[in-house]
């Protein structure tokens, strides 16, 4: 049973495994192994990240140099611009952040970290990816159908999304809703697996507070997703009926209510922020403890804080609608809950800093990504306070300040968190050690341009620049020279950042081809995934070597021990500390 389940050197046949379903390349397409499914999610997500990044490149070029013939795309028409912006948002959130962080790392890490041989429902897991794959095809198809992709912004507010006489994309907008709906079904199937696996398949001895924080966070995120997505699915069904049959759920002329969609959407949409945030925060805390060689500061507090965040996240949604005509008394309530939810998140950031305090820190690539996550997410969080206060939001709403704010939250989550996770678990996933020097070049080449993109956008937003405008030269008060200079700076930084991603792909290629082989536990970490081969075999451990747990995952630098780490599965000598 030592066949590497994930083996990039294709073409070899494993004849000793006739009982494990399809062989050869079909093994990768039709596998029920959680590690293969994780890879499928990750590579699909990375491909979609390239698509989303290309869209950002096209519309940023249009904003910096209006009317230019964008290399690789051509002239951008106003309709295309709106479709690009809409689908950039949709793809980056639903086809990059969720598959890479939640689905790929959830699938990869949960069974390995709780000491299970696979998910409890492997076939449901396979179905989950297959549905996701179909949804990917649907969303990509929606871009090229007649009339072009949906152009009503990723929040799809009616009437723009509901009536094709407004959005001019009768097919694209319906395909968009169907694609997003299918994607949710895929993650529901995945979420059922995650939660059930954690509840029922933990290794003997693993108690609730011996579970690594990242697993807790992914599972809490799945619970949030499952509780919040139902109303949005209901809304999506109503929206499709409005688009195709001509019902009037969101049409005031027929007695419907467009604000209803906003409530249904944001009732999902705000917990969704935490659905993608929590896995990233979990990844970061794993990396920080490993490379600070310190026990997590206040493990239980972290778990309770995460649960509190999850509960609170259901009572903040209307802060997206302060200027949509909701009752001001309701706006007051949602201002209070919104400011409240920053408390647990700030607490988590303090926990991370307290964990670093006094540690013996190794600044390698995963650790740099983890630290960058905390720093940049902090900026995103602090700027959110302004938007959460109903008074300030009236000025900031729909400006680039909002845009820069949520990119300062989503970029750390979806990109920095994902790079942290990939660089940290790469040795386990692919059995090779990545080049640290190239990794650092890629890190600085991403993190500096990222700030150079969005700090100018903060300034522009405070200057009153509205979102979703195709060409600012049509608006004299927004066509100032220094405004345009800022836009060019942001676009130039984006080009630099995109160019530096090639370093990452080169590093990946070089590591797979020539990288040194990874040992079982290259980072000297404690959790269970480091006790098996790199990459783990099918079934994760030999059947006679399934792990048993004796302690929590963060026992670093325990006094009176020779090693500064203490794997979870190592029995304690009787009477020792």
């Amino acid at each position: 049973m030592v066949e590497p389940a994930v083996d990039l050197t294709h073409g070899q046949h494993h004849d000793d495994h006739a009982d494990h379903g399809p062989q050869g390349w079909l093994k990768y397409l039709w596998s029920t192994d959680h590690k293969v499914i994780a890879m499928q999610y990750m590579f699909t997500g990375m491909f979609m990240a390239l698509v989303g990044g290309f869209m950002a490149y096209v519309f940023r070029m249009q904003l910096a140099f209006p009317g230019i013939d964008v290399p690789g795309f051509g002239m951008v028409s106003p309709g295309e611009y709106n479709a690009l912006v809409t689908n950039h948002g949709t793809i980056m959130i639903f086809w990059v952040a969720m598959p890479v962080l939640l689905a790929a790392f959830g699938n990869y890490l949960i069974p390995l970290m709780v000491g299970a041989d696979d998910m409890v429902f492997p076939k449901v897991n396979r179905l989950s990816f297959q549905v996701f794959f179909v949804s990917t095809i649907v969303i990509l198809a929606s871009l090229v159908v007649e009339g072009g992709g949906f152009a009503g912004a990723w929040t799809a507010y009616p009437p723009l999304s509901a009536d094709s006489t407004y959005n001019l994309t009768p097919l694209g907008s319906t395909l968009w809703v169907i694609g997003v709906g299918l994607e949710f079904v895929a993650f529901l199937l995945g979420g059922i697996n995650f939660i059930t696996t954690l509840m029922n398949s933990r290794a003997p001895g693993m108690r609730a507070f011996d579970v690594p924080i990242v697993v807790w966070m992914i599972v809490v995120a799945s619970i949030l997703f499952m509780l919040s997505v139902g109303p949005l699915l209901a809304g999506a069904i109503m929206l499709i009926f409005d688009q195709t049959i001509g019902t009037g759920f969101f049409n005031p002329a027929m007695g419907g209510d467009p604000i209803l969609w906003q409530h249904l959407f944001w009732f999902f949409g705000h917990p969704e922020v935490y659905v993608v945030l929590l896995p990233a925060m979990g990844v970061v805390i794993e990396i920080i403890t490993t490379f600070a060689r310190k026990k997590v500061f206040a493990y239980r507090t972290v778990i309770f804080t995460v649960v509190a965040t999850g509960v609170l996240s259901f009572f903040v949604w209307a802060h997206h609608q302060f200027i949509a005509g909701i009752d001001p008394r309701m706006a007051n309530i949602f201002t209070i809950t919104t400011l409240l939810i920053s408390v647990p998140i700030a607490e988590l950031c303090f926990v991370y800093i307290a964990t670093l305090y006094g540690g013996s820190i190794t600044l390698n690539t995963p650790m740099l990504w983890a630290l960058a996550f905390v720093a940049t997410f902090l900026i995103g969080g602090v700027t959110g306070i302004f938007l959460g206060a109903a008074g300030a939001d009236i000025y900031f709403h729909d400006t680039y300040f909002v845009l820069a704010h949520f990119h300062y939250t989503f970029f750390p989550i979806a990109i920095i968190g994902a790079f942290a996770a990939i660089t940290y678990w790469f040795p386990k996933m692919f059995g090779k050690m990545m080049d640290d020097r190239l990794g650092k070049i890629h890190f600085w080449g991403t993190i500096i341009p990222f700030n150079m993109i969005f700090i100018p956008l903060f300034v522009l937003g405070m200057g009153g620049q509205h979102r979703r405008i195709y060409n600012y030269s049509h608006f004299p008060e927004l066509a100032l020279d220094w405004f345009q200079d800022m836009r060019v700076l942001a676009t130039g930084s984006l080009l630099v950042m995109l160019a530096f991603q090639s370093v990452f792909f080169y590093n990946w290629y070089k590591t797979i081809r020539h990288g040194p082989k990874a040992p079982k536990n290259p980072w000297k970490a404690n959790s269970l995934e480091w006790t098996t081969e790199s990459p783990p075999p099918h079934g994760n451990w030999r059947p006679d070597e399934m792990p048993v747990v004796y302690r929590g995952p963060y026992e670093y630098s325990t006094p009176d021990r020779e090693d500064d780490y203490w794997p979870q599965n190592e029995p304690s000598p009787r009477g020792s500390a």
Partner: protein
Amino acid sequence: MTAGARIIPFRPRPRRPEKMMSNGVLGMLLAVFVEVMLFAGFISGFLIVKARAVGSVWPPPDQPRLPFERTAVNTSFLIVSGIVLLIAHRAYQRGNKSVGPALLVATVLGAAFVAMQGVEWVALLREGLTLTSSLYGSLFYTIIGAHAVHAVIAIGLLGWAWLRLQSGRLPREHLSVVALFWYFVVLIWPFLYFQVYL
């Protein structure tokens, strides 16, 4: 880090703990939670539209009335089906293998519910209540239709369970999973009935 030694209590070699509930039941419970939230979304939309109705007159005066009394008969079919299944389910859990007839009765009663609903829909369509005739119709067909889709799936699962039982290959857990889904379909119906039909 040489501060006060942390005491980690000694643990003997642990054994695999008892599961709180089986994988299938837990998975189905989670799926049911999602479905409950789906219907909560529909009902909240229904309530908002109802609250905004012109002159607070609901249902709209120019639309046909829903057959509240006749649907009460359907509802009783569904409830009885749920109770029969509950009895069969509990008997099967205790090891009684001869629950086939009861399972069949529950399935047929469920199918009768769906069939009678279909007959009512045809009548309503004839009277002029359609998906697009008004928001009243849209909400009715969307919400009750969503329930009907769930009912049809659940009846299919019950029929599958009955077939497996006939060949003696129905693990207890599988019946629990299928029954759980049917209980959801049965229990959510009264809420929809009193909200939408009244």
